[in-house]
């Protein structure tokens, strides 16, 4: 990757244009009243079409995507994004549909929603889905709203708490807070699973429900899930399944069968739609049959959710079919366990045993610290990986370990790619033992070196005009 230092504003030349619009053939309407007209200048760039294409092509070359290389980002399921998905989502018959067109004009689009509802229900064991949420966190919020609505409909207004494991994604407590719920954390055991004994005393008539990922954020299956769902249900609460970690369950286990009442899926993780540098995603929420009545009362986005993303996921499921679904789950788990076994001689594995689609190391076994030389941290390992053409794993999450390094390979990576990653991780560990400063100065070959994030936060420069 090469460094390119322009902003589009810096290419601007007065009088240059990059648009092509039709000649105005309408009679000229009277001007707007002056008190409604914009007075301020409008300093948008004035650039040619060629300038725009070159500029953004240059910017793209400072970026790393799944199509560039291996992206073992834990909890993010960065699998390959099939190209047929892009092709069908761009069809004018879908792209040109106004969202307020009635059912008679949108039969093809509605068929996509109907099929997706059936497919996702079959895959998850839930009864039906709403497709309005635009991302995973948005799905969580919607699911929690449904949870509260369910209790409200029963006249049970005392249930204002939600239980969240201490290993949960940060979005879980944040979504609960936006939904007006109070968070109660339940501790994890040494083996990384929810402490059922610690859960019991928390369950009373004030608990609306419990949010869980299974497998959890350590990539471990919650083996006592049956006891947990029974306890929560017995106390009158509902079980929420955070679908961020659904990939290893594909074709093998269904959240509905485990006793979950509400769940969301991240179509941009499990169902192969591209992440787009941070969205658009789609976070459909599924509910068990006894909660279907609550769905129509919740309106969380402008129209019908991110239809373009739903279309891509639909194409993916059609390609998978019932024959290939299980391969997704199984091979994501196979690849994760293989990496874990190959690297645990160089990186601390805090919890032994079989993992699911991802696992967490707690930093290097030998970080190279000696005398007055600091050891290499997880951040240093991550930055050094960039030099070898790999994206870094998720770092410093979950919060249970100080040097967390969370690796998720997904099912779409070949053994050769995975072996190359393992070799590089070993090489980095050897470098750390030898001289940790090689890692601490990394990346060496990226478009930029490590930036000064403290200065960025102390003196925020958040737009072009601030910088001048």
């Amino acid at each position, binding site marked *: 990757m090469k460094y390119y230092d322009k902003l589009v504003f810096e290419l601007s030349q007065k009088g240059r244009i990059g648009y092509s619009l039709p000649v105005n053939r309408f009679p000229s309407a009277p001007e707007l009243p002056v008190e409604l007209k914009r007075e301020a200048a409008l300093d948008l760039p004035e650039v040619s079409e060629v300038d725009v294409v070159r500029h953004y092509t240059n910017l793209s070359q400072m970026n790393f995507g799944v199509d560039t290389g291996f992206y073992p980002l834990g909890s993010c399921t960065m699998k390959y994004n099939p190209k047929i998905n892009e092709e069908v989502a761009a069809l004018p018959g879908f792209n040109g549909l106004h969202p307020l067109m009635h059912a008679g004009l949108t039969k093809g689009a509605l068929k996509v929603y109907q099929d997706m509802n059936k497919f996702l229900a079959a895959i998850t064991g839930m009864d039906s889905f709403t497709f309005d949420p635009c991302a995973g966190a948005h799905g969580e919020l919607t699911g929690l709203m449904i949870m509260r609505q369910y209790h409200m409909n029963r006249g049970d207004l005392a249930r204002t708490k939600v239980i969240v494991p201490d290993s949960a994604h940060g979005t879980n407590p944040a979504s609960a807070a936006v939904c007006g719920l109070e968070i109660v954390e339940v501790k994890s055991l040494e083996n990384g699973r929810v402490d059922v004994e610690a859960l019991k005393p928390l369950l009373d008539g004030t608990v609306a429900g419990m949010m869980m990922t299974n497998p959890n954020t350590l990539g471990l299956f919650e083996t006592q899930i049956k006891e947990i769902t029974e306890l929560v249900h017995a106390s009158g609460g509902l079980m929420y399944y955070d679908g961020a970690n659904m990939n290893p369950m594909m074709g093998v286990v269904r959240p509905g069968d485990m006793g979950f009442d509400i769940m969301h899926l991240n179509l941009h993780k499990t169902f192969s739609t591209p*992440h787009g540098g941070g969205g658009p995603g789609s976070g459909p929420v599924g509910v068990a049959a006894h909660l279907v009545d609550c769905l129509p009362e919740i309106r969380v986005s402008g129209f019908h959710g991110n239809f373009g993303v739903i279309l891509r996921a639909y194409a993916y499921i059609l390609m998978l079919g019932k*024959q290939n679904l299980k391969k997704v789950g199984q091979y994501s788990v196979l690849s994760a366990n293989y990496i874990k076994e190959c690297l645990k001689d160089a990186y601390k594995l805090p919890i032994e045993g079989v993992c699911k689609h991802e696992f967490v190391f707690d930093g290097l076994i030998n970080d190279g610290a000696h005398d007055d030389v600091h050891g290499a941290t997880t951040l240093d390992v991550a930055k050094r990986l960039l030099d070898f053409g790999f994206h870094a794993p998720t770092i410093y999450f979950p919060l249970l370990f100080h040097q967390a390094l969370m690796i998720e390979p997904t099912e779409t990576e070949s053994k050769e790619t995975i072996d190359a990653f393992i070799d590089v991780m070993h090489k980095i560990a050897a470098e750390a033992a030898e001289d940790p400063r090689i890692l601490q100065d990394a990346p060496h070959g990226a478009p930029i070196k490590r930036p000064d994030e403290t200065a960025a936060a102390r003196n925020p420069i958040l737009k072009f005009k601030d910088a001048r």
Partner: protein
Amino acid sequence: MAGFSYIPHTDADIRAMLDRIGVGKVEDLYADVPKEFLKKGPYALPDAMSEGEVREWLGSLADMNPRMKVFVGAGAYDHYTPSVIPYITSRSEFLTAYTPYQCEISQGTLRYIFEYQSMVCELTGMDISNASLYDGPTAAAEAMKMTVACTKKKTRVLLSKGLLPNVIAVVETYAKFHGVEIGHVPVKDGQTCLDCLKAELAKGDVAGVIVPEINRFGIIEDHAGFADAIHEAKALLVEYCDPSTLAVIKSPAEWGADIAVGDGQSLGIPLCFGGPYVGFMGVKKDYMRKMPGRIVGQTTDKDGKRAFVLTLQAREQHIKREKATSNICSNESLMALWVTVYLSLMGPEGLREVNRLSYDGAHYLKAELLKTGKFEDPFPGKPFLKEFVLKPAKHPGLVQNDLEKAGFFAALETEEGYVSFCVTEKRTKEEIDALVKIVKEG
């Protein structure tokens, strides 16, 4: 076992990996799952299709949706999309990247977000923009929560009845669960009623007020006096706006807004049955740390080179958890790129020309429709840009039906029994004349 193109594992790979792990078969990796939860029997899914079959099938579904000339807005606008945009946004370095957490190899994403933030600030006149939100209505909901967080001990937010119905519905949903009371300000004479607003503000419990720059009747509202009244009551003014129109009408900052929100769809994003679109938010500097969502900032790297990073992250869910300003995580980054490329191509002149064409076209259509004698103007003399409503002599549904049969999606019925029309720069004089002809004959 037949192979599958997205999964590269050969039988030999699988055997070698299992041996290294030390288990006999793939199923053993699920030995910790209680047997009763392992799915028995096949999934109720169709048989796998080939890529060609998927292409055929989705093509046939797309063909089931008739291609219409769109004369409706109401929050989703059929503006022109320059061909450069999909070309750039489909570059896989942008398309297949994750959120730019590893900034050293994400400078492309971080730079365009910085440009996007700069452009949102330029259009709205606000000091600070975030990296995007889901859509316009959720951006309004985030603004609703923000006004409560920024004004201590106040729990009520007022919504103008001139806002689009879907904006009101989403804000009300968020408010209900977040514990915020919602009040409404009526529309009188085609405009959010300032006297009614003042009466509500006098109650002293109002944290914020959300009003539309252009209301659901298409009327450009005059918000003179709004900011003063609202600030005097120690509340915040939120302007909901269509960013495309801000090239020509007063910006939220010019009305004295504290927060500007809306949907970026009108900046060249295809209709696509309602999404993906992109919510935007601009705020005054005082409220920077209460703003939801990701923000990109400029700094330097170790060698002194200009560099861009995600900043002010201590507001966000992965650090503050339940105390975060919002739960938002993934936003609409690629759609922010879409908007950024659009605004780069259009520039100030292009955006003004888009508005000029829409304005002249809409005024032409309205005049021609009134000439047919089949409509009354419920808001005579009120200023509008590209959208307007008329009161039809016959049943609104019938007007829409006649036009639909001729290939026009137009004359959308409102709750008052008006029909609404929208004209963008994509609508030609020939199309408008043809539409008017149908109305005359109908």
